């Protein structure tokens, strides 16, 4: 019953879109208010809570010593998981990660990995072990655009994290060496109009979604098209440009101090 949207509601959103307006009064390239709070979970080595509008995710980073992959003996390991827990939405059911949870996790992971945000070769430990870095995204409230919230949260939690070296006898606790700040920006296509940071209704109505992850030099480290609609290459380029400039703004606003620090 949650899946059917009233036609007049869809019409309302389409009509507004044609006039370059949105239900909550935002412009097409405007995000809902974003808030990032770090260090809320002491048990985790790093943590961040991100809100984009009413969407809320909690990301915990746990770092533990472990065995490397046999084909990369001196590289640390990153493992990313997303839990779409049922408390976050009437449509989430208990159980192992479904295709949506897995897609979210893999895209966030790609952003962190391909951007070179963490140099895995610096995560090796003296005794042949390496640091295993677990990024666990726990979605608390789904009001659209979980992807960007999860990606920002992962980055903030990684920056907040300190290796638990003292606990395991590897010396002093240290921050992770974060070399890049990948930011994900998601756009949806509603009847040919492109808008960023889709609200829940916009996401449900849109036929297509495109997430673009870019780094501080504007280079792309991840992309994901989602949904059953199609995009022209011109639309894709337009989104890429929109996304990279928006990513720059978000990066400045929330990670500017870290960059300068």
């Amino acid at each position, binding site marked *: *019953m949650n899946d*059917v*949207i*009233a*036609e*007049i*509601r*869809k019409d*309302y959103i389409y009509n507004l879109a044609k006039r370059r307006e949105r239900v909550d009064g935002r412009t097409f390239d405007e995000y809902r208010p974003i808030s990032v709070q770090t260090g809320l979970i002491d048990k985790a080595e790093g943590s961040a809570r991100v809100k984009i509008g009413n969407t809320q995710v909690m990301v915990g980073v746990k770092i533990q010593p472990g065995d490397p992959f046999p084909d990369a003996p001196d590289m640390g390991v990153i493992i990313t998981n997303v839990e779409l827990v049922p408390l976050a939405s009437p449509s989430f059911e208990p159980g192992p990660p479904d295709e949506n949870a897995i897609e979210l996790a893999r895209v966030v992971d790609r952003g962190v990995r391909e951007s070179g945000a963490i140099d895995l070769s610096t995560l090796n430990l003296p005794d042949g072990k390496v640091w295993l870095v677990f990024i666990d995204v726990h979605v608390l409230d789904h009001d659209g655009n979980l992807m960007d919230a999860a990606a920002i949260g992962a980055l903030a939690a990684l920056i907040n994290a300190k290796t638990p070296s003292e606990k395991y006898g590897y010396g002093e606790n240290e921050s992770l060496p974060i070399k890049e700040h990948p930011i994900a920006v998601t756009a949806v296509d509603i009847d040919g109009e492109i808008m960023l940071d889709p609200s829940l209704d916009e996401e449900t109505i849109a036929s297509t979604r495109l997430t673009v992850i870019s780094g501080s030099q504007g280079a792309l480290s991840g992309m994901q098209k989602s949904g059953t609609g199609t995009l022209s290459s011109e639309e894709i380029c337009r989104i890429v440009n929109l996304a990279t400039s928006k990513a720059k703004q978000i990066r400045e606003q929330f990670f500017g101090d870290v960059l300068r620090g």
Partner: protein
Amino acid sequence: MKNKEIVDKNIVIPGDLLSDDPPKSGEGTYVEDGKIYSLIYGIFDDKDKIRVIPLSGKYIPSIGDVVIGLIVDISFSNWKVDISAPYEALMHISEYPRRIDSSEMSKIMRVGDLAIFKVVDVDSSMKIELALKNDQLKVLRTGRIIEVSYSKVPRVIGRAGSMINLLKSTLNINIFVGKNGRIWIDGKESDEDLAVRAIKKIEQEAHTSGLTDRMTKFLEEEKHGIHK
């Protein structure tokens, strides 16, 4: 300068002791050992019977309720309707005033349509049957729909319709409030926008007193803002 409106209504929670006069037990309360207790989170009211007016909760239909329903599916002989209740409601093909064939059903009301219905039966297992109000098909094709908690509907309507009439007269809109918390508004877009904001404000402040006066003031100020 903010005026602090005192919430002079008593908020109670389940298990709160309300009275030791069992015959006066009304809705939202239960009796145990000669005392009346609250069953829900709500506002204590002892004007007549002792009752608790809910602050939240799900809409449970009663026979006679007029609601706005959303068609979510069509089976061989029923339209399946979401009326914002924990239960799906059905309108049988025979409730349509003209004899029609099963294949014509989606031409009359299709999935995604919103329409006004009357609840004609609710049985003990919560099977809900709907019919058209006054045997008239009223599909809402224009305007906007907003949803509020059913528990706030009495406030949106107001005593003897005072609040809803205030909205109608200040803004030039058509408005229909379903018992299930679905509200339909139709008018000029700027008036619709203001109506939506006004209704959300009523929903937020439903538990306070002096709301009608505050809403009158709010609408005056906002309306003048529009015409600047």
